[in-house]
């Protein structure tokens, strides 16, 4: 919302400086977005008179001017404007001036042999409008030599504030003035428009066909108007806030929108068909051409204004072309209506119209000011365009907006933390237009002014700013009822409290550190939550750089990494390649790794702890620690460089699992990783035979080629939510036997397809009493072995507990292990 300082002073009698006004606006919740001082930018441009205008000797389209800038000497100026002529007055820019509309700085020059010591400017060149047909042509009485900005009244700073959605009343200069006055910055000037004399009966009557369409509407005609350009002061004001002046009648409606926050509409009576204007809901086949040049087809939920010929306007949002006012209008009909704000908001959104009228109607107008607004508009039209007023046609009725609200003074400190006393609180409310209905030592009850639709709004029949309770249906009914019962009272009280606090300024509230609930705070993370931090450290310390990538990606790419159900499709993606929730972070990490490779960094290790999305439910969002490694290990003199392989991915996944308390003995590996992995070089780590905890492996070449990545690349995904929470029980006493362990190496010959894991498990289960550890330390496959066989070597550690083992006992235990391994896997012990 923009306005100028002088416009504000029309309503506010104050001697406060601009700085004080801006600071106060910020304090009371009308945030200042910017201040523009156009006079400063245009200071070097002066009013000048063209004394001579001759054809340029060397150019058909140029003229050589002699210009008097008021200091007695004639300047030579070359000008291409068609309207440049001797005797005219215009705006001259002198060397050194920056021309805002064209972005150049003027200097003395020579144009085709004629000296040019300045520039006569167009409206566009000064950044004041679109006109570039010719140079500015000022009236004869413009004083030569005066700074143009000063003469044109541009020395009036334009203030822009951002008005929060609850404050419809502050979308008016008068509303802003009222707030500033209440904050102690002067007094609000009285506003009490005299009714216009009625000269004839109204030519048009209002009919509200459907009560849903309109709450109340007033209208009246003014005949005998002359509709030309509006006076300069009005044009200047509208231009200052970025509106284009059109003609006096339309300018009056725009002025009211900003001055009083009251959108009006004007019909050209001669263009209206029939004698009635009807407020109704849209019907099948309705269509009209709006003033903004677009055609709208109202639905049965939209409010329309219709005459006998059909729809004329989408009520309160955008008017129609066919009955609009122009220079030929001799009789005008003014509409001043009050609509259901919710319906207006929905219509505006449905048709995507953002108009000043909609913004005010959906936030709520002053429901008690209908008649005064109409009278004020009538007077202004008669003042600017002449004519005489008709009687008023009216339909509907003023809504029951009257309501009270109570503030208990104790709440000022109890909720507001403020030391404002009762007297000051009541005075603040009164300055804002509240009237005291009752007051005692503990509380005050006030009547809410008609323009403050945001205060105790659920008690007003005009439902601007209101919202309904929408309690969670699963709540215990008694509890829900108790909660609901107090809401209305507390809400109204909070509304009043906010008014009292904001006028004083929130900086006045003393800050109080949050009191401790106990001597020391409880842990801020649950064991489950702290695992995320641990997983992050584990992966980063394994040399992966943490990344944060988008949770959505291109549907086609996502489909390579898992199911891409329609239910996880973004309906309104911001870009075509961000339209599907990713099935796994690997999808986006791999693209990121590819981008690094394309930049000349082909060896990259990235991880992310983020969501995999498998269903649009809380359970369908799986917390995942995922990583991708592309390229090769670092070059080093003592460690040969190699490409990353599936074992690296397994190492990363396993490191996370072990850090999070998963017991290695409980883990099994199956070879059924999802399809984005290489089918022969990937696996799923499971807890026991079933529950998958992680998957890892080389990525499938088909996926890499689809993403344009030169492979190989590896990836892993640890499903954090599936990892059972470690049990927080006391550790048992440590097992510290006093006898030395016995170590034996056993090499087995086994079919190549047998998993090493199978040998380890068979060995482990064979001898539970003596066997402390078993691990694989060698794998050999080569031409010294029979075709299709590999050699796997295990180290077994036997731990005696009661006495040193005899050789026979050791041999017996080893034989048991060998037999069990042989039975389970077909392996034979190598000599």
């Amino acid at each position, binding site marked *: 919302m923009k306005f100028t300082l002088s416009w504000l002073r029309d309503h506010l009698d104050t001697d406060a400086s601009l700085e004080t006004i801006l600071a106060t606006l*910020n304090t009371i*919740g009308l945030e200042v977005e910017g201040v523009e001082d156009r006079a400063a930018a245009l200071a070097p441009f002066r009013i000048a008179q063209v004394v001579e205008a001759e054809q340029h000797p060397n150019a058909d389209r140029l003229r050589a001017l002699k210009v008097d800038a008021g200091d007695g000497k004639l300047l030579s100026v070359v000008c291409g404007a068609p309207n440049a002529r001797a005797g005219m007055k215009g705006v001259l820019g002198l060397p050194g001036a920056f021309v805002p509309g064209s972005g150049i700085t003027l200097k003395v020059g020579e144009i085709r042999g004629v000296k040019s010591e300045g520039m006569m400017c167009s409206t566009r060149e000064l950044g004041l409008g679109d006109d570039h047909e010719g140079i500015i042509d000022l009236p004869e009485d413009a004083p030569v030599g005066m700074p143009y900005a000063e003469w044109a009244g541009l020395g009036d700073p334009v203030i822009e504030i951002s008005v929060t*959605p609850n404050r419809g009343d502050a979308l008016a200069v008068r509303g802003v003035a009222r707030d500033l006055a209440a904050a102690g910055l002067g007094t609000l000037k009285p506003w009490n428009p005299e009714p216009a004399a009625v000269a004839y009966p109204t030519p048009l009557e209002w009919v509200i066909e459907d009560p849903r369409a309109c709450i109340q509407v007033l209208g009246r005609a003014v005949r005998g108007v002359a509709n030309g350009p509006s006076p300069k002061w009005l044009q200047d004001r509208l231009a200052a806030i970025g509106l284009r002046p059109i003609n006096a009648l339309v300018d009056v409606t725009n002025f009211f929108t900003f001055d009083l926050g009251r959108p009006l509409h004007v019909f050209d009576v001669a263009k209206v068909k029939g004698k009635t204007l009807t407020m109704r809901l849209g019907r099948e086949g309705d269509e009209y051409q709006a003033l903004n040049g677009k055609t709208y087809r109202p639905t049965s939920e939209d409010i329309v204004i219709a005459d006998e010929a059909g729809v004329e306007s989408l009520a309160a949002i955008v008017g129609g072309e066919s009955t609009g006012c122009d220079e030929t209008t001799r009789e005008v009909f003014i509409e001043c209506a009050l609509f259901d704000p919710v319906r207006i908001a929905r219509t505006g*959104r449905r048709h995507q119209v953002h108009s000043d009228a909609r913004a005010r109607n*959906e936030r709520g107008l002053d429901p008690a000011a209908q008649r005064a607004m109409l009278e004020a508009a009538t007077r202004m039209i008669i003042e600017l365009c002449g004519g005489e007023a008709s009687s008023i046609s009216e339909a509907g009725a003023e809504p029951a907006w009257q309501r009270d609200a109570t503030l208990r003074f104790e709440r000022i400190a109890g*909720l507001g*933390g403020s030391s404002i006393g009762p007297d000051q609180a009541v005075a603040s409310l009164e300055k804002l237009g509240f009237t005291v209905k009752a007051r005692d030592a503990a509380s005050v009850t006030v009547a809410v002014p008609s323009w403050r639709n945001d205060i105790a709004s659920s008690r007003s029949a005009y439902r601007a700013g209101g*919202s309904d*309770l929408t309690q*969670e249906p699963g*709540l215990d009914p008694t509890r829900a009822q108790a*909660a*609901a019962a107090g809401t209305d009272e*507390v*809400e109204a009280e*909070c509304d009043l409290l906010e008014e009292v*606090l904001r006028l004083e300024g929130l900086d006045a*509230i003393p*800050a*109080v*550190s*949050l*009191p401790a609930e106990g001597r020391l*705070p*409880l842990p*801020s993370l649950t064991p489950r939550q702290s695992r995320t931090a641990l997983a992050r450290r584990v992966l*980063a310390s*394994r*040399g*992966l*750089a*943490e990344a*944060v990538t988008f*949770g*959505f990606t291109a549907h086609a790419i996502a489909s390579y990494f898992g199911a891409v159900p329609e*239910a996880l499709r*973004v*309906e309104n993606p911001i870009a075509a390649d961000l339209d599907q*929730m990713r099935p796994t972070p690997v999808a986006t990490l791999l693209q*990121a790794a590819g*981008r*690094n490779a394309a930049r000349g*960094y082909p060896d*990259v290790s990235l991880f992310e702890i983020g*969501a995999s999305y498998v269903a*649009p*439910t809380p359970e369908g969002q799986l917390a995942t620690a995922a990583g991708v490694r592309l390229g090769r290990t670092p070059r080093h003199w003592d460690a040969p460089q190699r490409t990353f392989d*599936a074992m*690296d991915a397994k*190492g990363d996944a396993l490191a996370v699992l072990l850090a999070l308390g998963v017991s290695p003995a409980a883990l099994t*590996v199956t070879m059924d990783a999802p399809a984005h992995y*290489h089918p*022969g070089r990937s*696996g799923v780590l499971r807890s026991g035979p079933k529950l998958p905890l992680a998957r890892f*492996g080389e990525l499938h*070449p088909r996926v890499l080629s689809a993403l344009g990545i030169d492979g190989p690349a590896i990836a892993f995904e640890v499903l954090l939510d599936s990892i059972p929470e470690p049990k927080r029980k006391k550790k048992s006493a440590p097992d510290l036997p006093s006898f030395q362990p016995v170590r034996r190496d056993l090499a087995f010959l086994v079919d190549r397809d047998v998993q*090493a*894991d199978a040998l380890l498990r068979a060995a482990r289960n064979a001898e539970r009493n003596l066997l402390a550890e078993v691990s*694989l330390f060698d*794998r050999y496959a080569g031409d010294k072995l029979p075709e299709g066989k590999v050699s796997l070597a295990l180290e077994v550690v036997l731990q005696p507990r009661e006495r040193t083992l005899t050789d026979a006992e050791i041999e017996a235990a080893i034989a048991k292990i060998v037999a069990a391994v042989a039975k389970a896997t077909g392996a034979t012990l190598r000599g």
Partner: protein
Amino acid sequence: MADDLDMLRADIEAAMAGAEDLRALDAVRVAALGKSGQVTALLKGLGALPPEERKARGAEVNVLKGEIERALEQRRVMLEAFALDARLAAERMDVSLPPRPFAPTGPEAGSIHPISRTMEELIALFGAMGFAVAEGPDIEGDWHNFSALNIPEHHPARQDHDTFYLTAPEGGRRPVLRTHTSPVQIRTMLTQEPPIRVIVPGRTWRADHDATHSPMFHQVEGLVIGRDIHMGHLKGTLIDFLRAFFGIADLPVRFRSSYFPFTEPSMEVDIGWSRKTGELGSGGDWLEILGSGMVHPKVLANCGLDPRVWQGFAFGMGIERITMLKHGIPDLRPFYEADCRWLRHYATSPLSPFTLHDAS
């Protein structure tokens, strides 16, 4: 189609089916469509036909040629897939083997993202004030994200949230990608009895993409509910946090009255900085940094808390924003690019966990 063409087609199709690899398939292609292929020969022979037959016959041969080309292509794709699958099967390795006992890259190559770092700091600082971390899903229902927070469907405030929607299930409402972390306020109040002190760091989504907006970003929400929590506490908590987080003991903090549908009274919070140098703490300018307020009575009641008994405050701020300010990171977009050069520059070492005693 003429009988001879049918027979030819059957022959070629049989040959294709018999081609077990790409080389064999190519031989079939040459025999049919090569320079001296059978189909090519038929096309060459058309010139010899009487003009009245030529047209019909030519059309038939060309149809056949097209069919064979398509069939060859299909077979080629299939054989390539077979070849790849065979290669992958041959590359099979024993993934049950224990992985190497060391990582292929070391801690000096790894790093923690600045967003995570800030989250760790937030958790430590608010944790010291007794806050616990609460979480919620990214995909939310309309009720949690809007209605329960006193933002009805028609509310002008909904236009400020450029909401992403997912496809609606049959007969249901379309889920949203949460536009703020505030729905977790609702989830917390529904599942936890007051007093409540939680912060909610998490991902949020809005349909806005330019130099200063990302369609996915991070927020931290705070919620404190008790019997006597007032605006002084709100101010104290935020001032304490901001001064600790930015490490400036006298950081100027300003509170301005504002509006959010889910708080009443509401306020925006500014910190002092210099617009010219970007330096925090001095310079006479103000920078808006977060929004906050006393939890709206309707929000409490929507969650079954009686607003006559319970009251408290909530706040929300952008994690990227405070991270950029703290570390002087000029641009938002690289946060999500995973450019390893940027990460190396701004990320922190995995071996330096944040503690309250850090000189941040």
